[in-house]
């Protein structure tokens, strides 16, 4: 019984399992380039006879997909930047400043992150109407900046807790103020972790559904997730349209995935190996 014989069954089993994971993506891609007539005739499992891109174009124009992409980029990008900034301010005070009662402050941030959004959604909806922020992208940016920063504070605080203190002490002796130490030393040294955090914040915010669904009702403000989810919920789409929608929804996620794959894996490793 050689290893060559025992080696391959496991590989084959895992490859089959992995195929099962990606088949839905492939089947969507295949059907997004079929014409309605072809789909009606051959069903979902046949290979496409040619590249029919009108379905994608029609869907793009119908939902003004460019605008949705722009909204998603704007919201997720702003949240990533702002939430990282807020996290590092908090974590600087907790991890390096070691403010009094920091354990409680930290616990408070952790709980805030675990809170179900359902317990915030109606008051947030109501309050944003009161202050005139309802149905603005700004409202969603503010809310998610705070929610993501809760997690960021939690993670960064423990990273900064291990920050080499000699560097800070040296800078302080050289006359650097707290603000300078933060900007000139802590931020540059922590840049890798901050990069990982902003990638996570960006993708998490991109994928959010409940709050954007409630807060962004007008077509011009909707994100990709909400626009697709609402269309699907109304069941207004035919099969070709559905596939066009699915493909256009999958593509940005795929791009992020390929672009950030190393960051994502490293991000998980950063925490786990530490």
């Amino acid at each position, binding site marked *: 019984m050689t290893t060559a014989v025992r080696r391959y069954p496991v590989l084959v089993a895992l490859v089959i399992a992995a195929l099962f994971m990606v088949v839905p993506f492939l089947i969507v891609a295949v059907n997004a380039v079929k014409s309605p007539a072809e789909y009606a005739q051959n*069903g979902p499992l046949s290979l496409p006879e040619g590249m029919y891109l009108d379905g994608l174009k029609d869907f793009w124009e119908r939902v003004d997909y460019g605008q949705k992409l722009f909204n998603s980029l704007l919201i997720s990008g702003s949240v990533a930047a702002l939430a990282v900034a807020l996290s590092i301010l908090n974590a600087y005070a907790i991890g390096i400043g070691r403010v009094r009662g920091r354990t409680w402050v930290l616990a408070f941030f952790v709980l805030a992150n675990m809170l179900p959004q359902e317990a*915030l959604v109606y008051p947030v909806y109501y309050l944003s109407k009161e202050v005139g922020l309802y149905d603005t992208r700004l409202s969603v940016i503010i809310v998610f900046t705070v929610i993501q920063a809760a997690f960021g504070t939690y993670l960064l605080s423990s990273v900064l807790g291990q920050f080499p203190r000699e560097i800070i002490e040296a800078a302080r002796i050289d006359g650097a103020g707290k603000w300078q130490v933060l900007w000139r030393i802590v931020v540059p040294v922590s840049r890798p972790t901050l990069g990982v955090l902003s990638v996570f914040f960006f993708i998490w915010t991109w994928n959010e559904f409940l709050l954007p669904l409630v807060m962004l009702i007008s077509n011009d403000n909707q994100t990709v997730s909400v626009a697709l989810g609402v269309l699907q919920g109304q069941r207004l789409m035919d099969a070709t349209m559905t596939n066009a929608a699915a493909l256009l929804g999958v593509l940005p996620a795929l791009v992020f995935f390929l672009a950030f794959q190393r960051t994502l*894996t490293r991000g998980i490793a950063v925490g786990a190996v530490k």
Partner: protein
Amino acid sequence: MTVTVERGRGQGRGRGGRTVTKSRPGRPRPRDSYALFLLPGVLAFLAVIVVPFLMNTGVSFTEWQGVGTPEWSGLANYRELMDDADFWASFRHSLFMVVAMAAVPTAVGLVLAAALFDHIAKHHGSKVVAVLRACFYLPQVLPIAVAGIVWSWILAPENGSLNELLDAVGLGSWQQDWLGDPDLALWSVMGVMVWVQLGFPLVVFMAGLGRVDPQLYEAAELDGAGWWRRFWHITLPQIRPEIHVVLLWCTIAALKVFGAVYVLTKGGPGGATDVPSYFSFTTFFEKTQVGYGAAISTVLTVIILALALIGLGLQTRAEDAEEGLRT
């Protein structure tokens, strides 16, 4: 959702660091002036989380349609919840979601991670591992709305890919209305959620395995331990902290699940896939019974926070025990 694993060990080390600085005489640090840096964060949290959360809890003791003045009704909403069969059904479905989103992905993810790490990496190289891991992780980066679109089309009763596939391989009699049949819909949603969730534990466990000393495996192999014994006696105990975090995190995600239900079934057919978050959403925005919706989300919050506290407590205790064993 993805999360980095936090082991909380850093804090211990950090505390040690402080005693060192503090013990240096003649240099009292003005510690609390750092509190200014917390100001923006604390203010933002008050406005976006604390005040809305307290409002929600307050509203749960009132009758309110969202307009006009809320009318104090004490515990009436909670009493009504106790007798509401739909509410209990939604919580029962939550337990199914915990199985689909936490228990199954953790168990399967463990076996897959161990197989990839211990077997595939050794015999087929790290490139193969990276590609396979990427395939499993892919659904995790997808917005749940998109995953919902993909799956509701695949599971469609007519012309759905799954039914067509069954037909093509001669199992036409197995065709079902996967999402439309009240007896089946919950299981179909669970299947989709396993697909969505699997990549997260897998990637976390693989990262965790990265810090296990390879000599442990080599020694076990020399002693003649087979794959399963190594899995039980080395892999599982070594990445227990990761297992705790993943189980806790996924359970909370399962209790909060909303987008998938909204896109796949809208809680139907006939409430067969309703979950608390979707139930509270419809109560808020479709039935505009804001007080009742607030009571539902308050109960959900209490359960989640209790679970989180218990989970974090258990985790800290396990870690302390571990530290104690080591020293």
